[in-house]
């Protein structure tokens, strides 16, 4: 009999197991995959994601093999902003959400999952959690409406049954736990992006670059093995046509969004792996908990990749749920109180506002005039640029940036005008042309 069984041993699962084991609880964590291995993800960690790793003492290991930076360049229709997430906002984030702001770091990194998830698993093992990989859960044991354990198969096909006081579903977007319990989906937002990416060697651009033009975007981020993760994305309405020629359209999208990056990749780059891709990233939430079970990570809230936040959210969930469960397992609070504490933070106003923010961005509509004007107004205003980046990354609440008096002030303080930026020259015509599916 374990205190907790965690299904899924990646960003949300291994971390939850690690934290619970460190708190002294008996934990079993299982995953059907073998490790080290990858999972679909472009694996960018914002500074709060890195800060979680640092709080858990794992950042050194990651940084030993992964390049990290603090400033990021964001270019929207040629309007460039460079900034970083401010330490003060990071501290505020951790204080508000977790009640302490230790271990904050300002850097970000792109960590291959085969690297990161292995580090997490090793740490969980080191903390005393029992880790079984190559173990597929095939059944939940339910007694009197309460989940009390799992049945599954080891890699050699051996059937196994285990029991615990709580079963934690950390089993991703297509969660087995959620499917087995027939959990509904809430707050669904079907519009999303398609994303295609691969790994390239042969150039080093330093900090990450995120570019957007019309309805398409691309990112180049240095990652492990001296490679760059090069990603393009666009509205899923265009995905069918994009798929007709993946390598050709991948390059075409790069060339369109940033001719310089397109040229860099073509002239200097060597592709080291196949091109990976996914089309369906529609967003949804699931119920968070019920008798004998609780969900974390993508299993409880899946969303589009366009703000690169899922792994950081998985870490957040791990801290929140382990803190809540620890109090219950120690007998300080009832399970209901513990789960309410977790639920309040995960289904808050700020969380709703960010969910809307990501989902709206994921529609990949061309930026409107006012949005581009806002980017112009931010140029030269470092403090607010940084706050905008922090808001985009879900460090600072959407409501604090997108507030009338703040936006007025930003406009008033603008140092540049639209006259300085080419996209405004014939804006109406340009935005009409952006509506055309360039892969059709």
């Amino acid at each position, binding site marked *: 009999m374990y205190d907790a069984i965690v299904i899924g041993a990646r960003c949300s699962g291994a971390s939850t197991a690690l934290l619970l084991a460190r708190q002294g609880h008996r934990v079993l964590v299982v995953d059907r995959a073998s490790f080290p291995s*990858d*999972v679909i993800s472009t694996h960018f960690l914002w500074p709060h994601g890195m800060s979680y790793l640092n709080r858990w003492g794992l950042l050194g290991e990651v940084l030993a093999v992964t390049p990290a930076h603090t400033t990021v360049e964001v270019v929207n229709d040629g309007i460039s902003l460079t900034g970083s997430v401010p330490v003060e906002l990071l501290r505020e984030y951790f204080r508000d959400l977790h009640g302490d702001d230790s271990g904050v770091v300002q850097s970000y990194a792109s960590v291959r999952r085969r690297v990161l998830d292995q580090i997490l698993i090793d740490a969980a093992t080191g903390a005393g959690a029992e880790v079984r990989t190559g173990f597929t859960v095939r059944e939940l044991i339910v007694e009197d409406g309460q989940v009390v354990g799992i049945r599954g198969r080891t890699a050699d096909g051996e059937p196994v049954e285990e029991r615990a006081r709580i079963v934690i579903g950390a089993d991703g977007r297509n969660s087995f736990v959620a499917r087995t319990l027939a959990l509904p989906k809430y707050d669904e937002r079907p519009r999303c992006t398609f994303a295609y990416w691969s790994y390239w060697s042969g150039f080093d651009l330093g900090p990450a670059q995120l570019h957007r033009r019309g309805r398409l975007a691309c990112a180049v981020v240095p990652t492990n093995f001296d490679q760059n993760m090069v990603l393009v994305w666009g509205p899923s309405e265009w995905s069918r046509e994009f798929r007709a020629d993946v390598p050709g359209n991948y390059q075409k999208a790069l060339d369109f969004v940033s001719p310089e990056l397109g040229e860099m990749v073509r002239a200097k780059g060597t592709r080291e792996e196949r091109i990976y891709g996914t089309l369906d990233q529609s967003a949804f939430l699931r119920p968070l908990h019920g008798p004998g079970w609780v969900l974390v990570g993508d299993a409880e809230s899946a969303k589009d990749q366009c703000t690169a936040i899922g792994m950081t959210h998985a870490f957040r969930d791990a801290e929140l749920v382990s803190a809540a469960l620890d109090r219950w397992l120690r007998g300080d609070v009832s399970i209901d109180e513990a789960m309410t504490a977790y639920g309040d933070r995960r*289904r808050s106003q700020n969380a709703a506002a*960010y969910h809307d923010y990501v989902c709206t961005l994921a529609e990949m509509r061309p930026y409107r005039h006012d*949005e581009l004007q806002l980017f112009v107004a931010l140029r030269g205003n470092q403090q607010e640029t940084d706050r905008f980046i922090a808001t985009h990354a879900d460090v600072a609440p959407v409501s604090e940036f997108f*507030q009338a008096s703040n936006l007025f002030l930003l406009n008033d303080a603008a140092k540049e005008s639209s006259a300085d930026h080419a996209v405004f020259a014939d804006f*109406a015509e340009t935005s009409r042309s952006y509506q055309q599916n360039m892969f059709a």
Partner: protein
Amino acid sequence: MTPPGDDTVTIDLDQREDGELIGIILAAARRGDFETMARTASEVSEMTRNWVTHIPWDDLASLDGADDELARVVEELTGMWEPAHLRNPVDPDEEYALDKNAYDFYRPAGRNLLTRTEDFYDWVQARRRTETWQYSRVLEAAPDSVAQITNDLGRRARGINFNSQDYLSFNTHPGIREAAAKAMHDYGPHSAGSPMVLGNTRISDDLEAALGDLVGLEHVTLFPTGWAAGFGAVVGLVRQSDHILIDRLAHSCLQQGARAATRNVVRYEHLNVEAVRRHLTEIRATDTRNGILVVTDGLFSVDADWPDLVTLQRVCREHDATLLVDVAHDLGSMGPGGTGVLGMQGLLGEVDIVMGAFSKTFCSNGGFVASRSPALKQYVKMFGGSHFFSNALSPVQTAVVREAARIIRSAEGDALRARLFTAIHALRDELTGRGLTCMGEPSPIVPLLIGNEKLARTANRLLFDRGVLAFMVEFPVTPTGSSRFRLQVQAGHRPEEAREAARIIEGALADSRAYLSSAFGSAPR
């Protein structure tokens, strides 16, 4: 993409893209070719296999004969490759109406000022068509605790009225109506002109004195609206090189006044007096020459809370800064003898500058600015723009406000406030008892927190037909993602009416949540 049916194995096996492979698997499934399915599955990248965990990648061959399972796998794989929304379109109007907010239209494109407003108008029309546009409803008769209204599609409704700012229910008070009628008879409807010329009457002088008495600051100037008073006071007093520290939730007239007056504006965290102290110290460390105006509301109009004015005023004095407090909502409606938040904190006569509006408790239009300084009064009259260059309050308005001020100070005023607070407590208790979140403190404004705009808009649509008139506030009045219903209570509300309204609101919210299938609650973080 490889055409469906092509399952030739190429040499760069490991380079084939997953979409192509899944296309092959689906085509093979249609042919019942399980061997190809299984062989192709083994080529699918580890990334995808570890993500799409509900497909039995290693066991596709065993689907032979398992019709249900095969159908499920085909459906799931198709779903991954043909995103659902491309197959099931939604009502575009409703999606557009619910997913946007006014900020999305804040900077329109183009040089033609007339045509570039059209994008916004399209959105307004979508909100109207879906009956989620909460603005511009009109009254069909004098409102009291119940009102009859028409929405801007011409649909009528009758409901318990939480949209009037008439906190002491003066609109139907015989004394108030009589004062209006008498002024009408004595002076006619017109104020002759600007108060700087001949716009004021004797009633105006009496009113200034009565207000001075109420707030303990004897030098009072009248303005045609509360908005004009706030804007005028700020732009009249502050030079470009001065500084303004303003609570980030202070009323729009003060925010816009601050913008118009100087670029040196700091919007401090709501109610945070320590933040004010910090900013003042910082400013004074480098600037000892210029003025600093600190600006706050008394009772905040969408949050129903108020600052610690005692400390705030002391901190201002310590740094040679001047405090301006807007008591539009609390003066008359709460506090000992109707003295509002100032009276509650023992600050009558102690605050540097006080402004207010007659548009709430005083049952009229208009506003005022008060201080202990005759010089400040003359200065604001001359340089505040909105006093000098706008017609004075009409005699009828002035008379109504004067009579309202009299009642507010009387025993009847105390009785009305007691009734008002009975209704406030009934409403708040019933809402809270039903698990909803009332923000702020008991006061005539009861903000019911919703959070998500879509939920608020949908609930608002339902409430219209269910007999409660509640104003939904969203961006730009509140920050993005923290919409709410602002319920304004009146002395005329019977406690049972308030409780009934709370029950109806809870029902509408529950139904909206179900309609949107939303899991979000309204806790802040």
